[in-house]
């Protein structure tokens, strides 16, 4: 039995599992239009799937069932008879599906009587007689015969896992058992607590790897989700007299199990729509000046924590406003007014997952269907935060930085305007107070020093989220929210915390949209205060970038603007440009945050803005200064580029509001470049148990000019090759050092005497964390998400090492 058929049987079985309850309720109350609509969608999805196979009986029955429900909604009909007839049809479909599962083909016989009786029920509603007659029909009897296949049992979801992955999991499970035995022996014997601690650390590491391996087993490649669509294109296009070239992009992207079925179904339906209604016949295409073969592109990408799937074609497109309610216009023209129903089905499934379905059409040139689903629906890491007395989870991939809001931290919240602003290092970001946004009850004992702001990056959005405190990071398995009376996009799901209580997982993009930064509708739970118009708006300096587009920065962040001569611009050893600010060289960037480039044609006409603060600054090369404007209160839309945190209109032009934090972050990396002479590269040993943290920080440190060796534990750092002895600076997860202080002492002993430096990593550099670090003789602490702070700490330690070396 081929894979497509297996998928069909599994999906149909799932559909009927969900039909059971609806059918029972439909029988009790056939007047309920909502149940009828649900049933219609379900039977329509079966009908759509049947179209891929030569199952004539199933197709006829699905058509009959759909027609029955359609007549129920259109003319009211004889309701009881229709309900009964529909149930019989569903029962027959189920029996045939069971037969196909067992024998790979439809059973012999026909269903004309059933379909005719259904028609009769629609017409004159001889409900009771029809029901009785149906029960005694020969076709039904044959299907119920003792030799027939057993009915399909209720299925659990299944998926393929490679034997390599299974072997990995088994190997790790064995290793775990072995470590447990060693730990028990150490605790019962005389090896002492140091040995037990070491075994405990190993146990934790293997448990984490087992967890990762189990999670990876849930992942499937996108190419597998797109396979049925490829086969469909091969089969359907010739039968329609069309020629199609299919392109698949992002096939290697891994999709988690809860999303896989939605993605697979969506790709099939989108492809079916494109082949049936979008792509024209070769003659028609040639007359429209297009190549005879239609182009169909299926692409997947990961964007801002979302899985985004595009299916686009270069067909006829469709008229605006015809997407869901009335079906795609191309379908309507073809006499298929219900083509939009499949899209409705996908849209409702995407909605249920906290995602969205968007349609873009260029009449005569093609259409693109974009499915966006939050990846955080599965296993992920999250930052647990407190808002008032409640705990929420923020997906880790969306957290760019965590800042303390303690008075001495330098970050401050400006709540005077209609939208609170976080000011930090000369930059400003729109800010949401999570407790206020969600109406969380206040904390019993508020701790002002614990307040923090998470800098959130969600797609093109950037904003700050103020929280009462940061509780730390957790591995979570996020689940979709149960069905609720009020749907809220602010949450992408829920997960059980380590204590067993549920916590809501925030949807960073939806929160940004609720703040008015995105394109989505504001949530009803957003307090009116944030939407109200009010007094003075922040002012921005608008300028024309070197690319010609208008851009803006908060006026308060612009230190000065001056016209430069070539002699004012310095070129460093790595061909990076820099300008002098208060006697120091600072990197010169363009408005995209990249190192600036000088065009010879512009000689003598450069204008540089010095932006930032005295502590962190950079130069920004611009074409011309446009003027100072007031930032609009309401109409800031999401930017389409990473370097901007919003877009607003000025006259007939759009102005990108640049992300100052991003610019300064790039500048911080650039400053290290300026100082690095290439001959004295600092060697950093990075110790963290989490692969994602190691990768993230290694990239940042390498970009800052460090040579980085990343290992997953103290044992690896103190191993046979003893990399710890060769490094200048150790950057270690504080929890690892605390768990194995003996190992930490060994590593410190192996380093080059007292000269070696250390920096402790923690989720959030609180005063408690600093105290714990000091107890291990680690002078510096940095948050795992606060990459600029980590790089600053590395620079300080590097400078200290240089001073020590000079003194020696």
């Amino acid at each position, binding site marked *: 039995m081929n894979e497509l058929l297996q998928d069909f049987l599994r999906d149909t079985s799932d559909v009927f599992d969900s039909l059971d*309850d609806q059918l*029972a*309720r439909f029988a009790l*109350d056939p007047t309920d239009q*909502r149940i009828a609509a649900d049933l219609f969608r379900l039977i329509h999805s079966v009908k759509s799937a049947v179209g891929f196979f030569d199952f004539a009986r199933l197709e006829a029955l699905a058509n009959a069932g759909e027609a029955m429900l359609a007549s129920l909604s259109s003319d009211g009909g004889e309701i009881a008879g229709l309900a009964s007839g529909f149930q019989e049809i569903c029962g027959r479909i189920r029996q045939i599906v069971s037969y196909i599962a067992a024998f790979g083909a439809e059973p012999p016989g026909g269903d004309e009587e059933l379909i005719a009786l259904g028609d009769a029920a629609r017409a004159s509603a001889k409900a009771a007689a029809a029901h009785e007659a149906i029960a005694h029909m020969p076709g039904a009897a044959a299907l119920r015969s003792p030799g027939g296949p057993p009915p399909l049992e209720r299925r659990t979801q299944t998926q393929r896992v490679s034997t390599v992955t299974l072997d990995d999991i088994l190997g790790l499970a064995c290793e775990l058992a072995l470590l447990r035995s060693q730990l028990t022996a150490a605790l019962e014997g005389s090896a002492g607590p140091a040995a037990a601690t070491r075994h405990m650390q190993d146990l934790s590491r293997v448990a984490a790897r087992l967890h990762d391996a189990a999670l990876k087993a849930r992942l499937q490649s996108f190419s597998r989700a797109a396979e049925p669509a490829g086969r469909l294109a091969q089969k359907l296009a010739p039968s329609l007299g069309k020629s199609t070239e299919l392109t698949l992009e992002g096939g290697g992207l891994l999709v988690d199990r809860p999303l896989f079925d939605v993605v697979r179904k969506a790709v099939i339906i989108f492809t079916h729509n494109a082949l049936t209604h979008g792509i024209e016949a070769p003659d028609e295409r040639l007359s429209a000046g297009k190549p005879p073969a239609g182009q169909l592109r299926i692409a997947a990408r990961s964007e801002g924590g979302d899985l985004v799937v595009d299916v686009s074609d270069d067909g006829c497109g469709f008229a605006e406003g015809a997407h869901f309610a009335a079906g795609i216009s191309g379908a309507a023209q073809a006499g298929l007014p219900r083509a939009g129903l499949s899209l409705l089905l996908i849209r409702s499934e995407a909605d249920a997952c906290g995602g969205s379905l968007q349609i873009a059409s260029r009449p005569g040139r093609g259409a693109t269907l974009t499915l966006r689903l939050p990846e955080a629906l599965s296993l992920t890491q999250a930052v647990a935060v407190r808002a008032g007395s*409640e705990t929420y989870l923020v997906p880790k991939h969306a957290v760019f930085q965590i800042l303390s809001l303690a008075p001495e931290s330098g970050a401050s919240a400006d709540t005077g305007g209609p939208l609170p602003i976080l000011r930090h290092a000369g930059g400003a970001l729109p800010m949401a107070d999570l407790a206020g946004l*969600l*109406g*969380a009850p206040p904390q019993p004992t508020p701790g002002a020093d614990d307040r923090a702001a998470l800098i959130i990056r969600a797609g093109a959005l950037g904003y700050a989220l103020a929280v009462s405190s940061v509780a730390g990071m957790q591995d979570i398995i996020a*689940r979709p*929210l*149960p*069905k*609720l*009376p*009020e*749907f*809220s996009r*602010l949450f992408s799901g*829920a*997960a*059980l915390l380590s204590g*067993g*209580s*549920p*916590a*809501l997982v925030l949807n960073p993009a939806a929160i940004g949209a609720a703040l008015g930064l995105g394109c989505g509708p504001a*949530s*009803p*739970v957003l307090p009116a205060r944030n939407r109200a118009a009010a007094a003075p708006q922040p002012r921005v300096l608008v300028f024309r970038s070197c690319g010609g587009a208008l851009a803006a920065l908060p006026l308060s962040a612009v230190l000065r603007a001056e016209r430069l001569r070539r002699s004012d611009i310095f070129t460093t050893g790595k061909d990076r440009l820099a300008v002098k600010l208060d006697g120091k060289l600072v990197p010169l960037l363009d408005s995209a945050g990249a190192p600036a480039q000088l065009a010879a044609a512009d000689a003598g006409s450069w204008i540089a803005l010095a932006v930032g603060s005295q502590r962190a600054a950079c130069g920004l090369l611009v074409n011309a200064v446009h003027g100072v404007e007031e930032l609009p209160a309401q109409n800031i839309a999401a930017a389409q580029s990473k370097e901007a945190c919003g877009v607003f209109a000025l006259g007939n032009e759009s102005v990108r509001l640049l992300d100052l934090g991003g610019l300064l972050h790039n500048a911080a990396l650039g400053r290290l470049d300026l100082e690095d002479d290439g001959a004295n590269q600092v060697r950093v040993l990075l110790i963290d148990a989490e692969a994602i943290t190691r990768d993230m920080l290694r990239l940042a440190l390498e970009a800052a000019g460090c040579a980085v060796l990343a290992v997953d534990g103290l044992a690896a750092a103190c191993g046979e090759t003893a990399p710890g002895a060769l490094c200048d600076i150790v950057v270690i997860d504080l929890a690892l050092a605390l768990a194995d202080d003996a190992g930490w002492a060994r590593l410190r002993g192996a380093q080059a005497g007292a000269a070696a430096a250390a920096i402790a990593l923690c989720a959030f550099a609180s005063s408690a964390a600093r105290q714990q670090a000091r107890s291990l003789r680690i002078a510096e602490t940095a948050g795992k998400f606060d990459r600029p702070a980590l790089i600053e700490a590395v620079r300080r330690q590097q400078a200290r090492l240089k001073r020590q070396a000079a003194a020696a």
Partner: protein
Amino acid sequence: MIRLAQPELPPAAADAAADAAGMLFLGAGGRHFALPAAAILYVCALGEVTRLPGQPPEILGLANLRGRIGVVICLARLLGLEPAGAGQRHFLVALGGGCALAVATVGDARRIDPLERACAPAPQRPARPRVFAGWLDTALGLVEILDPAALCDFDTSGSAAA
């Protein structure tokens, strides 16, 4: 005759009782209700509930229903009755579909004589047309039978079963 148990009924006993076919009697908002026992997964003491922002007041929040995350509905609020205080909602009645009811008391579970089903279906109330499936004629008077499917059926326009 029906005897309503006191709120102090231990959860374990309630669990066992709910296993019996028939009806489980509940108390909420100072009134008694019957719920088909077949629809009940288990009964336990009401534990920690995570608030769900933006939901109507009858939605108390999310709870850990033996490893699954489910919605907890305050039965009294759902029915427009005066709810007991937070400390007086003693029991969680877990239903299928990731849904559970918070109630003040859990009484007996017992098989119902068909003669006791006095007048089904129940009179339809405009605000909650589908929550009640019928009446039971008991020593305490008419007890409304709750429809478990309708209790957990939320539409997007408002409250459960509205």
